[in-house]
């Protein structure tokens, strides 16, 4: 019996969302009076997880590109070997990709977009956002094994120092896959919307793509990610990957700066989880206000 988290790393280093997820896992483990186990894949700084309350790290390696089926198999086997009662994952694109596979393998009830520690552990109830951030629900998981997906920036990073035991001889049986990654196009020098503490977003008020240097300059100065409203991506001023809102990406940054964005209900739904919003608009009646 334990709580198990999947602590993601990139280039061998734990991501910030992994530390937040460990902090969240620690809160669940305390509620259930059990220990916290993390699974890492190709991670070099496993010791750091102890700072956030992880008692044991199953450190595994994987050859080749990310493969959801193979990563899900590693997590499922780790959960079984530790008899994990609760499994927590982040809201990264990779974790959202692989988590449903784990939920089916473990016959676990799975709830995503969880916004805080469980309200109660028996019955197991969590608060989650629904209707694309326009509301919350209290959801109850009734299966023996439970799985939760934590919304980004919803719990925060909290230290709970302990010494993590690093297990390096956990080598789950692999699964084969006939899916192949043939090209990878990943920006290495820009901040992504998913990881950003600050997001600077532009709307139609910018008048055209030629004015986007205003957004980019501000974002560079602040170390922020750039984003845009739906009409801007539909008109091809900016790529779809920058569209934030109900049908685009959610933003849960500490600071969201919207420039020339009116704040239609669909846009607000996507950015509601940001903590502080700054709106620059010459229309005092804009829906944002």
């Amino acid at each position, binding site marked *: 019996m334990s709580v198990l988290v999947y602590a993601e790393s990139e280039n061998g280093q734990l991501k910030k969302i992994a530390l937040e997820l460990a902090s969240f896992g620690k809160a669940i483990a305390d509620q259930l009076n059990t220990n916290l186990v993390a699974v890492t894949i190709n991670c070099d700084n496993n010791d750091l997880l102890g700072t956030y309350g992880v008692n044991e790290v199953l450190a595994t390696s994987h050859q080749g590109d*990310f493969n959801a089926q193979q990563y899900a198999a590693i997590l499922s086997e780790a959960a079984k070997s530790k008899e994990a009662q609760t499994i927590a994952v982040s809201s990264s694109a990779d974790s959202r990709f692989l988590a449903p596979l784990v939920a*089916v393998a473990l016959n676990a009830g799975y709830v995503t977009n969880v916004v805080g520690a469980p309200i109660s552990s028996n019955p197991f109830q969590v608060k989650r956002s629904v209707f694309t951030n*326009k509301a919350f629900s209290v959801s109850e998981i009734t299966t023996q094994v439970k799985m939760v997906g934590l919304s980004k920036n919803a719990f925060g990073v909290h230290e709970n120092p302990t010494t993590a035991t690093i297990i390096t001889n956990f080598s789950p049986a692999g699964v084969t896959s006939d899916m192949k990654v043939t090209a990878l196009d990943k920006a290495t020098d820009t901040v992504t919307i998913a990881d950003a503490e600050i997001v600077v977003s532009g709307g139609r008020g910018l008048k055209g793509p030629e004015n986007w240097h205003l957004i980019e300059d501000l974002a560079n100065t602040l170390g922020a990610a750039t984003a845009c409203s739906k009409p801007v991506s539909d008109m091809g001023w900016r790529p*779809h990957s920058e569209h934030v809102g109900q049908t*685009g990406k959610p933003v849960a940054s500490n600071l969201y700066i919207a420039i020339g964005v009116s704040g239609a209900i669909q846009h607000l739904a996507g950015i509601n989880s940001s903590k502080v919003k700054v709106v620059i608009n010459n229309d005092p009646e804009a829906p944002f*206000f």
Partner: protein
Amino acid sequence: MKILVCISHVPDTTSKINFVENDTQFDTQGVQYIINPNDEFGLTRSMWFKEKSGASVDVISVGTAETEATLRKALAIGADNAIRVNATARDAQQVAKEIVAVMQENSYDLVIAGRESIDYNGGMVPGMIAALTGMNYLNNCIGLEIEDNQATAIREMDGGKETITSPLPLVIGAQKGLVEESDLRIPNMRGIMMARKKPLTVVEPTQEGQQVQTVSFEKPAPKGAVKLVDPENIDELISLLHNEAKVI
């Protein structure tokens, strides 16, 4: 090639969200329903395969009789057959299992479901269908080509994208980018007339049980007061962000 597109019947994106019966039920009064946008991107892409290579396209929804209007809209856009599993959707695994039960009656080469619905935002039905059937699976799909039983798909990930090849059968989680917003089709009169004659089969549910249940709903706390800062007084804004909000 046989394609199955999973359709979720969801409130229009502009809907005001309210709850009734002591905050335990969604208030459907005055709400217009639409095809879940992420599903519609997938449906529109499947129309392209239908026109290019003669693929047949079935649409499926797990829901009560009200969802039929949304399925008819999918038929008007160009799907060939609609299937409604006559059950109230309780949770994602039940929905995925009902769809898999129908899939076992017809073997599909490609199954498309939106990466998430805009109402309950679970984001797990396509992955669960893949896990239950052992089919290959790709989420956040923003590009898809199929040639000689081999799919080449683009997956959006945090901070980039990757191109993946996979043999069929394949399940994808669709989103914007798979087709452009401007590619979406508004059904014309002929499509609407033809949709009335296309088969809409109702099948009875096969799954029991529930893993997750909604206990109650709540609305977010009302928005706090807006602080207006004069454009001539940028120092005040910086001070508010630095000293008060402590975000820069």
